């Protein structure tokens, strides 16, 4: 039973990550592959605070989100000047630098990472059981979903789509494209970092591998499979892509090649959807990826 709840926890965390990235990819047309890096910043800041200062949930979430935003701005400032391929490659660069920092610093524990992270506390409650952790992750995913829905349906959301469709037109109306992109970057980073906080608390041990390039590609796969510009799609894709490998565990496949098979499956999905169904499972437009 604990295992089932743990899977639910993972789905909630990845749904949050996919929604946060979809705001960039699907709504604003910014294909970033540094999301795992921002997620990792949240997880590492939380782990360091919890191990050394406090494991109060509210304080750690706020500080982790602040750190995530800060790092994200370092990424955003230069990267936002670039378009498409070059934006993607710049974020790829930042992803690798962030990973390298996790891997090499002493305070992040190097390749071993950090472990023995205490359970989160809030108003005297301790989130110790897997059920409590799951409910926490579910709450974050729900908040993220509701806020993202409100933002994307607001006038600002229309502006985001306008940036995606035609930047020049948006600037010619006197709107700052840079400021629009910047704002959505901050929003996205807050939730990616908060997902990192909950990940650190639920696993209680983190290492750099959980936040590497593969992970960033996985999050973008979630967005594309679910459908760029579809929040429901991101949630659906997170559920499907986490559950699928679990289902495969019941097939008679040697355990040694299971991780490779999972990767191949994700790779195939990415290729299939970019080739045959660019709107994803339930995407808004076919031509977000064009």
């Amino acid at each position, binding site marked *: 039973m604990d295992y089932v709840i743990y899977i639910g926890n993972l789905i909630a965390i990845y749904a949050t990550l996919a929604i946060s990235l979809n705001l960039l990819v699907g709504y604003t047309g910014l*294909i970033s592959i540094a999301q795992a890096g921002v997620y990792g910043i949240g997880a590492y800041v939380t782990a360091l605070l919890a191990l050394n200062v406090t494991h109060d949930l509210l304080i750690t979430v706020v500080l982790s989100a602040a750190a995530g935003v800060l790092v994200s701005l370092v990424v955003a400032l*230069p990267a936002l*000047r*670039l*378009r*498409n*391929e*070059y934006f*993607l*490659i*710049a974020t*790829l*660069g*930042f992803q*690798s*630098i962030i990973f*390298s*920092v996790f*891997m*090499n610093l002493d305070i992040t524990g190097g390749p071993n990472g950090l472990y023995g992270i205490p359970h989160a506390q809030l108003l005297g409650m301790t989130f110790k059981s897997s059920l409590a952790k799951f409910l926490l992750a579910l709450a974050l995913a729900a908040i993220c979903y509701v806020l993202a829905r409100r933002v994307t349906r607001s006038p600002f959301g229309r502006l985001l789509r306008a940036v995606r469709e035609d*930047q020049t037109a948006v600037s010619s109306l006197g709107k700052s494209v840079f400021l629009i992109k910047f704002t959505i970057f901050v929003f996205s980073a807050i939730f990616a970092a908060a997902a990192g906080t909950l990940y650190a608390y639920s696993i209680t041990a983190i290492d750099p591998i959980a936040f590497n*390039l*593969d992970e960033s*590609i996985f999050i*973008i*796969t979630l967005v*594309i499979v679910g459908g760029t510009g579809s929040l429901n799609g991101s949630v659906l894709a997170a559920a499907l892509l986490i559950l699928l490998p679990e289902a495969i565990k019941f097939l008679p496949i040697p355990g*040694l*090649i299971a991780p*490779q*098979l999972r*990767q*191949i499956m*994700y*790779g*195939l*999905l*990415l*290729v299939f959807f*970019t*080739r045959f169904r*660019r709107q994803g499972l339930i995407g808004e437009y076919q031509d977000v*990826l*064009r």
Partner: protein
Amino acid sequence: MSAFAQFFFNGVVAGSVYALVALGFALIFTASRVFHFAHGGVYAVSAFAGYTAMVVLGMGLLAGFVAATVVGALLGLAINAVLYEPMKAGGVSPFVAMISSFGVLIILSNLVAIIWGSNPTVLSPGGQATIYRLGPVFTTGAQLRIIGFAVVLAVLLWIFFRYTRLGIAIRAMGNDAELAEVVGMPSRRLRDISFVVGSALVGVSAMLIGLTVGIIDFNMGFDIMLMATVAMIIGGLGNVGAAAAGGFVLGVIQNVAIWKIESKWQLAISFAILILVLLFRPSGLFGERGSAIGQ
């Protein structure tokens, strides 16, 4: 001073490795405008095909190179035919093909792990290499060979693109595929040729690099692709010679940097250079000004 010379020389060796992979990558980019990350997957598969012919079947060094080259060429051609061409025909931009390409890289790397195992595999038992002394630096025959190949191939490709009809046609098509077709160029065939040549090159490179390092593994395509990307961007896009030069510059900076900075920061330094170049000199160090970057 001699320490610096040694670091610099090591940089040239590393740079040759990056240049060899960046050459095929840039050739394919020039023709198709796709950032063909799956090139790294082709690199890994070719290395293991060469290993199978040379070590497993014991057919010798030449057979190893032939197997790696043929498998690389066919695989590159297949990826273009099955994935990129249909996407292009459907009006999908090279940018989406680039994202697809990540998927292919993941698929190929993990297929290698399933077929040949996920542990590092010995391609050539090193250890007995003779060490030569060139002025202040020490080197091995394998290192000199790899530098030689990288320089010769880079020069040959540069001449090819500059002076031959085929090379100029491929460049023209990369600039404007529609226009090239209007004036009667067989653009599909030109792209196929570029994929075959670029991928055959990466097959040769995979064997050369594998023999120098001694060990190959299923993940080898990922890191080398990242470095080839950095090399191509800092060299200058759409220009094969510039990409190779970018590879050498990257190798030298990486290795001279570890003279003063701990080597574990090598990767971070490379990407910091990438970002600086993207920001301040998007046409690359050796590329023509006014390339397609930026807005």
